[in-house]
């Protein structure tokens, strides 16, 4: 079963929502890389389900089942569930008649180790499995937000301090201005990348255009596989026997800054952003938190994924009114 685990295996930022009347609280991953809402439920009795808080529809006076089942081929395994409707409270925003996938069979045994009880997708409705209306779309149609946008701040260190805001940006979480770029495909939060620089030198690798999906449900920075060799060479990383790219921890400050050019603005990633320092049995080692993808974007251009590695450096704003993504330097 573990072969199906990928993106979600490394995710670490979770928050609470509540469902039903009276409200039942669950921890979810707020995922800009998917569009469905699903949670553990009492319909499921597998070992993985039993390891988490489960939503019990029988204890909710506002729940209604719709009799449909759903299959979600998530990147972390396949979820089977029943669909139903209930009230969902997201930070005090009360969304009524929200369609919810209630698990009947959980993805896979590794989910025993997951610290979240469900996933709340924040991408566009076009990619929603089963035609489920995403939470954000219901917030918009029920006129629950000041501005139809949401924004993420992911803290670089410590367990606390990260936040997701709905309806407006939090000025205290970024500095300078927000730079906007249009969404190129209203499926995921996909944007165009016009340049990629190493230490300020343009590589021309994206001169014919690259795409990037901004995805809070992916931890690493993901690079097109055809660029990986050159990136690792520039970083001076050596591949370990386990396939990880390693660098000498004492040399981190000498490693190059990687920059993306998006709508005319360069967004630098210093080595501290893409190098992960770990301690194991008293031994410190440093790995490069950049993974390859062998798949292109839907339009055939090289595909990057801006996961948490990028999003810890840049406060990110997702604007549904104007279909644009904004980035500003995170505090």
């Amino acid at each position, binding site marked *: 079963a573990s072969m199906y685990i990928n993106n979600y295996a490394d995710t670490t930022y979770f928050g609470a929502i509540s469902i039903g009347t009276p409200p039942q609280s669950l921890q979810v991953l707020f995922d800009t890389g998917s569009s469905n809402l699903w949670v553990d439920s009492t319909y499921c009795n597998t070992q993985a389900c039993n390891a988490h808080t489960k939503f019990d529809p029988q204890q909710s006076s506002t729940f209604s089942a719709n009799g449909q089942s759903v299959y979600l081929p998530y990147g972390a395994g396949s979820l089977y569930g029943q669909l139903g409707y209930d009230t969902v409270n997201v930070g005090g925003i009360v969304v009524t008649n929200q369609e919810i996938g209630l698990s009947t069979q959980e993805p896979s045994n590794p989910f025993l180790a997951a610290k979240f009880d469900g996933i709340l997708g924040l991408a566009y409705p076009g990619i929603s499995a089963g035609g489920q209306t995403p939470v954000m779309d219901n917030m918009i149609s029920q006129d629950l937000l000041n501005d139809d946008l949401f924004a993420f701040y992911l803290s670089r260190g410590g367990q*606390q301090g990260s936040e997701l805001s709905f309806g407006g940006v939090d000025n205290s979480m970024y500095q300078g201005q927000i730079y906007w770029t249009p969404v190129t495909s209203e499926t995921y939060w996909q944007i165009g990348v016009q340049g990629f620089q190493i230490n300020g030198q343009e590589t021309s690798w994206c001169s014919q255009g690259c795409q990037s999906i901004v995805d809070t449900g992916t931890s690493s920075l993901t690079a097109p596989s055809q660029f990986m060799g050159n990136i690792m060479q520039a970083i001076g990383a050596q591949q370990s026997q386990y396939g990880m790219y390693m660098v000498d921890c004492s040399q981190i400050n000498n490693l190059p800054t990687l920059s993306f050019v998006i709508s005319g603005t360069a967004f630098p990633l210093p080595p501290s952003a893409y190098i992960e320092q770990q301690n194991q049995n008293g031994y410190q080692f440093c790995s490069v938190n950049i993974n390859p993808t062998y798949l292109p974007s839907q339009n055939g251009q090289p595909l990057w994924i801006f996961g948490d590695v990028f999003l810890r450096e840049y406060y990110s704003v997702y604007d549904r009114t104007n279909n644009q993504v904004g980035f500003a330097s995170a505090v």
Partner: protein
Amino acid sequence: LKVKIPLQKHKSMRETLGEKGIKIPYQDPALKYYPEQFAGS
């Protein structure tokens, strides 16, 4: 309405299982966006 939801950072599944000696194999992250290919992988 404008609201802020605190997010907490936890151990990932990979870290938790790694501490128990269980390794999660690497899989292409972009397969997430190609569910049909993913289902057949």
